[in-house]
């Protein structure tokens, strides 16, 4: 520090030396602070404007729609079974015809009323038999209808279960694909972020260190001036 420069500042030579030493440290400190701010801004921008990472599973669609629920097309083949009444009716007609013929014969032969009554009872019995036959047939049909309905319900249930199975397995596949896609995106982003973060963090760390070092240099330069400061303070006290 030349005496000429000391003359500019005034006071002891150590004051001028300390001021210039401290100013250099201050300049370094400011430069390091600016650098830190610049790096921080740069890092923020890199993070905010990262290029889009594509999700390779993005195009996957739910295929469960392709499975058709066929249960609506199922029907109970026994639902509309008709009772075969034709033969019974014929049997009744035959009975009625036989009864009429018999009555004619009784009349022609001059038969009594007792014979006619017996005949009528026989006819009634025959008709009752016919009715019982129809009833039995109807019952059989009803049983078949119920069995058919049971089978239909079972098949419908089975189809519903199949559909549910497809939907669930497809949904599961979709979810797994989604998860895998997300994992891929996360992994890529993480890798890139880590690279950028590591690099810029290292630079940030260096600039912080430079700033801290400059701060220490400044403190050290100022400490060197303290003796001179006390000289000034002493001058004040002397004035008192």
């Amino acid at each position, binding site marked *: 520090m*030349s005496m000429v420069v000391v003359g500019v500042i005034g006071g002891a030579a150590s004051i001028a030396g300390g001021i210039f030493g401290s100013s250099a440290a201050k300049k370094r400190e400011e430069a390091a602070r600016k650098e830190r701010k610049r790096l921080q801004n740069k890092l923020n921008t890199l993070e905010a404007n990262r290029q889009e990472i594509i999700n390779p599973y993005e195009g996957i669609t739910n295929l469960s729609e392709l499975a058709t629920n066929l249960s609506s097309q199922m029907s109970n083949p026994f639902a509309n079974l008709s009772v075969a009444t034709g033969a019974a009716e014929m049997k009744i007609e035959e009975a009625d015809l036989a009864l009429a013929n018999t009555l004619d014969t009784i009349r022609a032969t001059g038969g009594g009323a007792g014979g006619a009554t017996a005949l009528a009872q026989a006819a009634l019995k025959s008709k009752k038999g016919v009715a019982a036959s129809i009833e039995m047939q109807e019952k059989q049909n009803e049983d078949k209808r119920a069995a058919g309905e049971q089978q239909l319900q079972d098949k419908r249930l089975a189809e519903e279960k199949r559909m549910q199975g497809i939907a669930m397995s497809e949904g599961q596949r979709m979810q797994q694909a989604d998860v895998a896609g997300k994992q891929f995106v996360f992994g890529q982003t993480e890798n890139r972020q880590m690279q950028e973060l590591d690099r810029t963090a290292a630079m940030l760390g260096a600039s912080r260190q430079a700033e801290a070092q400059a701060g220490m240099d400044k403190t050290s330069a*100022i400490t060197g001036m303290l003796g001179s400061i006390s000289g000034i303070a002493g001058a004040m006290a002397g004035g008192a």
Partner: protein
Amino acid sequence: MENKNLFQNLYLKQFNESNAIAYSQGFVSSSSNYNFQLLDNAYRNAGKTYAKLKIAIETNNCMSEDCALELTGIKNLEESPQASLDFLSLLISQLSVTEESNFDPNNNYKYTVANGLMKARPGFSKTDGYQAYLDLLPDGSQQISFMGPAFTKTMPDPYDPRFSIQVEDPLVVNNSSLRALIGSDTSLVVSTPDINKDMLRLLTEIGLFAQDMIGENGELRANAKITEEYVMMNTDGSFDYEIIDLGNGKGRNVLKYDLEKIEKKVTPFINAEVAGLMSSEQDVIAAWNVYISKDTSVEEDDQMAQNANAGDASWIYELDLPLQQDKKVLFEIKYKEYFMKNYLKQFTTNQLPTVKEDAAVFDLAEAKKAKAQKFLDDNDLN
């Protein structure tokens, strides 16, 4: 508009670098007085003032109620020596920016003069008409004033407006203002970012070069090449070369690069770099004025006596801050151009093939014939 700062700063820079003062007989033969004695003068009466305040308090003769003013005065005086040292060192740290090689001459030239005065440079002595004062102000703050031939301004003559006169216009800096300024990451005199260093570093960050192309100093090695991912290829996987004419009927293959792909790759990194710079808009103006606006090459800059400056295209700190959006966009565009043209281009032009056989010098006529034959073969035109 005449840019006074630009002319004055360039003149002062040239004056300092030319050593012309050594040939000034007037300067050599006379003494120069640099005894501005800033601290001595500032504290000349401080002792007496301190004593008066002390006595007033101790004898209960204070002017203010409860001696509030006197106590504040005592406190300010006790703190002032340290504050003076801090102030002067902070001021010198700011003014010394004017000595940097890439200093933007559009900064206020008065700071360049003040630096010359603080560093006792030839031409800025008391003998040359300069003066500097450090004042302790009643509010506890301090100010430094620079006066002299360079600290004037032109005013219309009050007696005859047809003429103009030079009036004193001291440069005054207050310590509390300066502290606040620095505290908000703003410089009194802006230090121009080292764009050359930034761009050399940026080259290693844009992802075009493999890690082994980067040296221990963090810069690209001399033999660095862009990775083959960005080299144009033929459909058969061979390199798609460009033939350059060496003269005398000889030619040579050079690699062709997918410039569109390269641009797409580097743009986000350049944008981030610019965003980093934008954290200080005064830095952006300095970079614009010294480097970016003219997009001159580094080689050209090196050949010049001083860094290129924007001249008439300069952005003016006093007028252009805060930066308008159009200027920010323009800066980003030109920054990218500057990088592509002056730093990246050398890696995308005249790059010899990596395949040894393809790198040999060959006869141009034969190469043309072979190329024509290949076209006929490929298209089944024989």
